[in-house]
């Protein structure tokens, strides 16, 4: 599912690492940091969408909460920035506990709606809690330093933050590959059978949700510290939509597809902003519509199927009969539970 042949895997990994190291030379350094953070965010969402079969439409809550918490820690305590970012990730995981506990009771489309609604609640809270969050102004002037070392240069900060991102990727990769990840995949493909085999389905879903939120928080916290501010946009529903789009564009359940999708979307947004185009939503929305209508396997999924003919165990992560790569979820639409 991740690399085509065992021999190609180290090669792909090395290419990815090289690209990650060379990125600030290839693009404007702040954009490089954006790509790294959004890529981790997308991978964290794919952990839930592609590998657990739950579409969260409220992940901005975790990305944004961590952005604010990390920003506040860095602003008020002066602790080194990785501590602030990890604190942000922890706060996202903590927030995911109650939200996940309530949301995993619902299936499919209901799950998407409920997570979206909870994220909107977080948005309202952040907006109203002006004394702490700065309301519409957001948090500004978040310091970027490590043991007295000034990292306000984006180029330097990219390399200071990259280990955290790579750590996040390692975690996602380990989770997907672990026995725990296999249970998640079985729950995605056939929840009833997983339950019958004795796995507490909802508890597994909740754990996946919390892990995904923590990793999203890691990305969001780093994003906020890297930019030196946290804003309401970080918790807004458009952010939730954007990360879903990255994953769908790259290919659901491909992990590295989300990374590719994140890079494409960030570069496209950057291009649109710098060229003074005002209606980013028109382009973003159009991409959404097109991939959903004609390109559901995403970039990575399509490329993978071109490279490797469909045969043997390589596609063992797809349920049989789903030749077009559309994740199957047998739950009916009539009842949410």
């Amino acid at each position, binding site marked *: 599912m991740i690399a085509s042949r065992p021999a190609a895997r180290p090669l792909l990994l090395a290419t990815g690492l090289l690209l990650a190291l060379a990125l600030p030379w290839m693009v404007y350094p702040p954009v490089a940091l954006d790509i790294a953070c959004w890529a981790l965010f997308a991978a964290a969402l794919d952990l839930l969408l592609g590998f657990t079969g739950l*579409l969260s*439409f409220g992940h901005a809550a975790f990305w944004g909460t961590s952005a604010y918490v990390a920003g506040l820690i860095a602003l008020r305590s002066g602790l080194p920035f990785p501590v602030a970012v990890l604190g942000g990730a922890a706060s996202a995981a903590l927030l995911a506990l*109650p939200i996940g506990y*309530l*949301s995993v*009771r*619902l299936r*499919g*489309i*209901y799950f*998407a*709606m*409920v997570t*979206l*609604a*909870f994220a*909107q*609640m977080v948005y*309202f*809270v952040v*907006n*109203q809690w002006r004394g702490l969050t700065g309301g519409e102004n957001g948090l500004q002037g978040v310091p970027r330093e490590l043991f007295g070392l000034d990292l306000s240069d984006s180029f330097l900060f990219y390399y200071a933050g990259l280990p955290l991102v790579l750590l996040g990727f390692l975690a996602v990769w380990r989770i997907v590959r672990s026995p725990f990840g296999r249970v998640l995949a079985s729950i995605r493909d056939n929840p009833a059978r997983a339950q019958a085999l004795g796995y507490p389905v909802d508890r597994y879903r909740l754990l996946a949700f919390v892990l995904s939120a923590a990793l999203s928080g890691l990305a969001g916290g780093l994003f906020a510290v890297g930019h030196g501010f946290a804003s309401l946009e970080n918790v807004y*529903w*458009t952010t939730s*939509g954007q990360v*879903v*789009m990255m994953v*769908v564009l790259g290919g659901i359940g491909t992990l590295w597809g989300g990374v590719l999708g994140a890079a494409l979307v960030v570069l496209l947004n950057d291009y649109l902003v710098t060229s003074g185009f*005002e*209606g*980013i*939503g*028109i382009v*973003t*929305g*159009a*991409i*959404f*519509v097109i991939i*959903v*209508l004609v390109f*559901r396997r995403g970039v990575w999924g399509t490329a993978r199927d071109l490279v490797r003919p469909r045969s043997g165990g390589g596609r063992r992560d797809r349920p049989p009969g789903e030749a077009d790569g*559309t*994740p*199957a*979820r047998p*739950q*009916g*639409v*009539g*009842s*949410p*539970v």
Partner: protein
Amino acid sequence: MLQQAFNGLVGGAFYALLALGLAVIFGMLGVVNFAHGAFYMLGAFGSYILLDHFGVGFWAALVTVPLVLGLAGALLERLFVRRLAPLDPLYNFLFTFGLALILQDLVKREYGVQSQPYPRPEALAGTVDLGLFTYPAYQVFVLAVSLVVCGAVWVVLTRTRVGMIVRAATERPELTRALGIDVGRWVTPVFGFGIALAGLAGVLAAPMRAVNPLMGADLIITVFAVVVIGGLGSIFGSVAAGFAIGLVSALGNLYVPALSQTLVFILMAAVLLWRPAGLFGREESPS
């Protein structure tokens, strides 16, 4: 306080109209229409454009705008939604999400983010004496229209043959088809009708709420919470929850102003804890 309660019911009237449209579309197609808020926004902008560019007043807009949007919705169903319907419902959710972004930013490009003014129709400019307090006539009108429309839909669903087919197709699509009823024929009109309801709510909102491109998106997320509370499979539940939530948030606003925006989500959390299927939803799952 009574006046606040009345405010709440008027706010609930909008929730109810939007939730009703969302629920009939969901029932018939299994599609959660994220673009519902965008069509509500288009309804408001439609009446603004009619007045501003063509001098067409409120009453004409009240009829034409929902009609046009309903037709647009039917077309949308024919061209796109239908193609995605056999797949996982998430794809239609994502499709309508993209559509909502496009519509919202197209309007934003044209009219900016500031609110456009829309005058109240003259016939409803005054106030009505409701015995205990006087109240703007227009708000009373909005509440009346919403109640009449929801009531009419209820009668159609429970008392007519069309309604019977729609209800049957909602609950057991395969079985209904097996009984020789052409379910597909009713899908497009029902979708169009749901969109028309959103448009109607938009036209009604124009004179009393800010007409701007973002008016739909935030509202629709709240309406999602409303239908989760009511039980999305249940048309009655959605409408009842719409009015109830309007009422509760208005009273909440009065007593605990800090919670005014978050109250509906707290209620949703409570309902999820207690009855995950919603107050009027069915617990059992279809075969």
